[in-house]
């Protein structure tokens, strides 16, 4: 079953890497709007929303690239699992507080699509599975001659 496991590992890391790189690109293109979307969660003091908006997309970008290129896959997927867990907690708190806000996960502009926190939370749970596979099923590098 090792071949199937390896295949699933590569599919999972490519999918997760692409998703986070895509999310990062949309945020980097509109940091202002992303800061606004972070602020809408009403969890941080005003200025810190901008600090998060300035840095978070680059964490997603770097880890996404690492997953796509199959480099440092375990640190990258562990980091993303932590981040993803944070997203899930934050989304759950938005649902708990009954906030009618956009997720801010991907598309940053208002107006158009409006992804509700519950849909975003379920999506993050799916991403978590991909990241777990990327972490746990990474084939061990072959050591020695045989």
């Amino acid at each position, binding site marked *: 079953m090792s071949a199937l496991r390896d295949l699933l590992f590569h599919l999972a890391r490519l999918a997760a890497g692409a998703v986070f790189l895509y999310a990062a690109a949309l945020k*980097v293109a*509109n*940091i*202002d*709007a992303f*800061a*606004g*979307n972070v*602020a*809408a969660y*009403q969890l941080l003091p*005003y*200025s810190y*929303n*901008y*600090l998060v*908006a*300035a*840095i*978070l*997309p*680059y*964490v997603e*970008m*770097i*880890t996404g690239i*690492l997953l796509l290129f199959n480099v*440092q896959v*375990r*640190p*990258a997927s*562990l*980091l993303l699992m932590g981040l993803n867990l944070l997203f899930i907690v934050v989304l759950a708190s938005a649902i708990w*507080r*009954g*906030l*009618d*806000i*956009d997720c801010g996960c991907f598309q940053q*502009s*208002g*107006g158009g699509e409006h992804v509700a926190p519950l849909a975003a939370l379920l999506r993050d749970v799916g991403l978590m599975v991909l990241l777990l596979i990327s972490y*746990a099923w990474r084939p*061990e590098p072959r050591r020695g001659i045989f």
Partner: protein
Amino acid sequence: MNDTPRSAGIWRHVPAMAYILLVATVLGLAVNGQLVRRAFHGESMPRADAPLTATIDAADQLPLPVDLAEIQPLAAAGAVVVDARHAADYAAGHLPGAQSLPLGELDARLADFRQRVPADTVIIVYCGGYNCHDSFTLGQRLLAAGYQDVRVFEGGFPLWRDSGLPVEKGAP
């Protein structure tokens, strides 16, 4: 075979994770440092997608941001709250006592507004929240029209409503 237990394996990755975070922080601050600095100095944010002419014309005159908690004391002290959204949005719900002045109808209604509101009045403008830039643009236009103290409530109507503060309904 790898004979280290998996739990020990997790901690093995901490230095690489810290390194990734460090690089992301340096990169993010290098690219967006100015934005973050402005936010921490409480300066107002000219939006990247705000009309360029408005940014240049009023470069030395930008509306200041105002916090949710400051609105009620300011209003009690005589500040006028202005709703920059469409009249229909205003009718569906607005801040108590707010005057409707949709950005799109400003040209037609500015003269009337100036007759009712003296130029030394503190004005607080808001619209549909962080994704809405009409309040900022309207603030710039009011400054250009001679109002001396114009502030923008960036959280707008959604933040006000979601904070559980009273909402007024009805057409202007």
